[in-house]
């Protein structure tokens, strides 16, 4: 029952992702989005947050089912009353609490506008080369992770 409820909720907001959500609940969604060296949002009232989770993309509104999602390298879009902002995160976790507060902890997150496509392309080629020439299993895995993050970043920059 739970699984069904979640999949229904996950699907509905994604189709509505282009539109602003209406005043969903009286409490409103409160977002705290932090990386180790910087606090991007601290207990800010927002309308909707779209996250790229390992289990799939999802849009989170107030009164979303409480859950803990692992984030994959991808774009997090924060939709406020004033407008929307997109951040590329390298990974982390998003925790939706029963009191309509959402905590997103990411290892690194930057606005998508701040990336330069040229540098990403260059780094991606470098990482691909390294993943092919890596000797130990660990190096190969590290290079593959880097390639995955950079490919996702490239897709995010070109999608905007």
């Amino acid at each position, binding site marked *: 029952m739970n699984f069904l409820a979640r999949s229904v909720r996950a699907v509905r907001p994604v189709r509505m992702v282009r539109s602003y959500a209406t005043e969903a609940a009286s409490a409103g969604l409160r977002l705290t989005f932090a990386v180790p060296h910087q606090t991007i949002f601290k207990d800010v009232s927002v309308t909707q947050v779209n996250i790229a989770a390992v289990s799939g993309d999802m849009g989170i509104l107030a009164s979303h089912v*409480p859950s803990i999602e692992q984030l994959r390298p991808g774009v997090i879009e924060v939709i406020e009353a004033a407008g929307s902002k997109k951040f590329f995160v390298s990974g982390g976790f998003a925790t939706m609490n029963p009191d309509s507060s959402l905590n997103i902890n990411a290892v690194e997150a930057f606005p998508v506008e701040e990336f330069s496509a040229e540098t990403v392309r260059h780094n991606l080629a470098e990482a691909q080369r390294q993943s092919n020439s890596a000797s130990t299993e660990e190096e190969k895995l590290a290079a593959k992770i880097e390639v995955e993050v950079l490919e996702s970043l490239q897709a995010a920059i070109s999608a905007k």
Partner: protein
Amino acid sequence: MFASRAQPVASVLSAGVQTRNMGTLREIQLRLNAIKNIGKITKSMKMIASTKVGKAQRAMESARVYGSSSASIYKNANTVPLENEDKVYIVSSSDRGLCGGIHSSVAKATRRMMAADGASSNVIVLGDKAKNQMSRTNRGDIQLSFNQIGKAIPTFAEACAAADTIKTSGVKFDTATIVYNEFTSAIAYEATPINVYSPEALKAADAFAAYELDDEVLENYNEFLFANNIYWGLVEGHASEMSAKRTAMENATKNAGEMVDRLTMTYNRSRQAAITSELVDIITGASAL
């Protein structure tokens, strides 16, 4: 440091001033120069620490938001440790000294917690000074020690490396308590624990069932929380240490200044006494003619 040494020296000097002669003037002068130099060193150390405090405090604000938001799950789910869980204490300090009571504060708090536990627990120390402190009483319990901590503001990469090393080191533990110095104000800090609960304790927490979670994600989540809490403890501990170092160096400079004043007075009095006695010799010699 300086305050404890000043008292005996001053009393010796004032007692012996009546019998002073020219020889000791040189001694006082040497001592005066030495203390002036020390005062210059502590003053510059204070200024360096002041600039570092500003940066460390800003990093601490971000780390606090990051760490407390990440650890809020424990509070929200009403997590408590399970019975018979292996505990490990992670004492977060640094390699550097001259920072007041920072290292002894975390060590004392850890010892107090270990005594309240009853059974002996494993200890992991972050920082050589913490290792020295804990070795005094619990040398056998120290399983792992890290150094090269405290030179700069701790980064998340360092915290991750530490968490990784701890996890793969074979130290058996279910729940961890990170003891660090909480930055309560610019002049005060307090040793505080951060509890990192085991995945089992989290699953057993009563309000945790409300959260939807894939099982394979739970283990990753736990490791993530572990690294986040270590990061938080390291960064806030670093900020407390910088502020304590600033205070300690400020006190040291003030004490050195006071000693210089006192010694200068003594020096001048000795000098004048020597001149007076010479004059007296000359005058009595002249009046005898």
